[in-house]
């Protein structure tokens, strides 16, 4: 990757968060070496301030029950310092507390 290039991280959202944002796929441009915490800060700045703190709560349209990064479960804020790579994909899985 050339110097000064940015990492592109794809974020997939579902359910009411997708409705709120009007799209199911978000793209974050991050500096090389950025971590998961930086990604959420970028999402909050670019898309919606609620990305700064996603509650595990189905009552919130920004509720998130699980985070899946490149197919593996990660957790926030415990893994906020996890380094990201160009092309990473994160899925924000909504709560299903009401049963289905």
């Amino acid at each position, binding site marked *: 990757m050339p110097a000064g290039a940015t990492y592109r991280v794809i974020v*997939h959202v*579902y*359910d*009411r968060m997708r*409705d709120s944002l009007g799209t199911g796929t978000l793209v974050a441009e991050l500096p090389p070496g950025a971590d998961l915490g930086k990604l959420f800060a970028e999402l909050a700045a670019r898309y919606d301030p609620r990305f700064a703190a996603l*509650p*595990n*709560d*189905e*009552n919130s*349209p920004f*509720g*998130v*029950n*699980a985070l*899946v990064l490149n*197919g*593996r*479960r990660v957790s926030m804020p415990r893994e906020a310092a996890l380094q990201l790579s160009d092309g990473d994909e994160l*899925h924000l*899985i*909504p*709560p*299903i*507390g*009401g*049963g*289905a």
Partner: protein
Amino acid sequence: MLVGSPAITPNRWTVVGKSPLTGGWGDANCGGYWGPMLKAAGYDGVFLKGIADRPVYLFIEDGTAELRDAGDLWGVDALDTELQLRERYPKSQSAVIGTGAEKLSLMSGVVNDEGRIAARSGMGAVMGAKKLKAIVCRGTAALPMHDAARANEIRKRYIREMAGNPKVKYFTKYGTINHTASSAFGGDSPVRNWAGSGLEDFPSAEAISDDNMLAHEYKKYACWKCNIACGGHYRTDDAQFPVGKTHKPEYETSALWGNNLLNDNIHSIMKANDLCNRYGLDTISVGSVIGFAIDCFEQSLITRRDTDGIELKWGDAASIMALADKIGKREGIGDVLADGVMRASQKIAGSEALAVHIGGQEPPAHDPRYAPSWGMIYAADATPGRHTQMAAWVQENGGTIPGIDTPSVEKYTYTGKGGLNAHINNLGQAVFSAGVCMFAFTRVSFSEWTETIEAVSGVPTSVESLDEIGQRVAAIRQAFSLREGISPVNYHIPGRAYGDPPIEKGPLAGVVVDLDTLRREFYEARGWDPGSGVPNTETLERLGLGDIVADMEVVKPAVAAP
């Protein structure tokens, strides 16, 4: 008690019996219109004993009941049976069985409202064995209530409350189909007969989820007096799998016929829904047993000689549907599979590790490794493998029981959940026994139930009194299973679904469910023996169930902790 009343969702009815699938307490619950009509016909419930010497149906009208000849209906599918009976008895409602139940499939249920099915526990086979094709109800009696005006006022108030809730509005639009894909990608849904991972094995899950499914809805559907209205009527003019009208394929159906079979043909999922409804079969169990069969085929445990020439493949809608039809008819390989995964596995050598069932019943599309309290209740309750049995899975999944204060829980912390699991389960046992819907239980303030039960019955009602009623319901169910020789602690537990061995890929990688700790603490909080699940004598006496103490004394020596 609440069926036919002004409560929120006062329409649920339950079929109860000894389950031929599990050997223990069996029940299956359903919405629609039949339950309220039974009340309007003058009955709270129907007890059936014995076996008819020829096919019959029970006709109930205005306080009278009569068995009538059903010779002309035997062999007719469930949906057509219902339509014929409605033509014969205008303004009636019928609960019927399909031809799958006539052939005693242990995956069969009882159908009303053209495809809403009380599907679990094999209750259709119980009716089939009795040669009882249907129960037809007709009547106009009003439900007697202690204070009807108050009950109606309460209903209006809570409908207003729910109408302002965006979460409820969203559920009205989608119902359960909004998370078929996200559940596959997050780990909630089984994928590839519980051995796969959505993002790796079924990345096209969105093809069968959310708006892609909703696009086939041509009319909204609501059960009787339901203000949530999460249902819908669906159709597709697909050339290969046309469907003129079917109920919305719910999440469970979409997940087990889609994600679990790697099948992204949305038309085939609607067709599967219609086919199962017509045969009167449980889409959870049939989807599961097809996944088991494909797995067996892939691993060469069965071949085309065993499958009547069908080449079974993951994601192949044509072979999946061909197999489903054979199961409905009990033809060839369909006969091997028609009684569910456990019995099919007993007939296919070497298939034990592929057989995902709990105590004989196929689990629903919620993975214990994603929400361990789901796994606990699947393996601790008298009816195994049931996602509608309440527990702390609600909180583990980010949900709430509105109006009930509960502590926040960590999914993968296994200690300290017994009291919460027991409390939530007790409330569910009580409220569901009153005849209302789980989707309302998790979407309206709990005070709706206490206030309405009090208005309808005149009996002072509180969270505490409902908790105690729930304890009583749970103890009776458990004692029944134990008396019949079925001990939940000895259920077969499928390693694949509990992390034994742990899966190496996907979001559930490395998860091992500590079932023993969860179940022990749950039983202990219930006042049951933590090792065996036998209700303690003091507990039974405290609950006014002293009459079953003697039965429990008999079973205690026979129930060994695993």
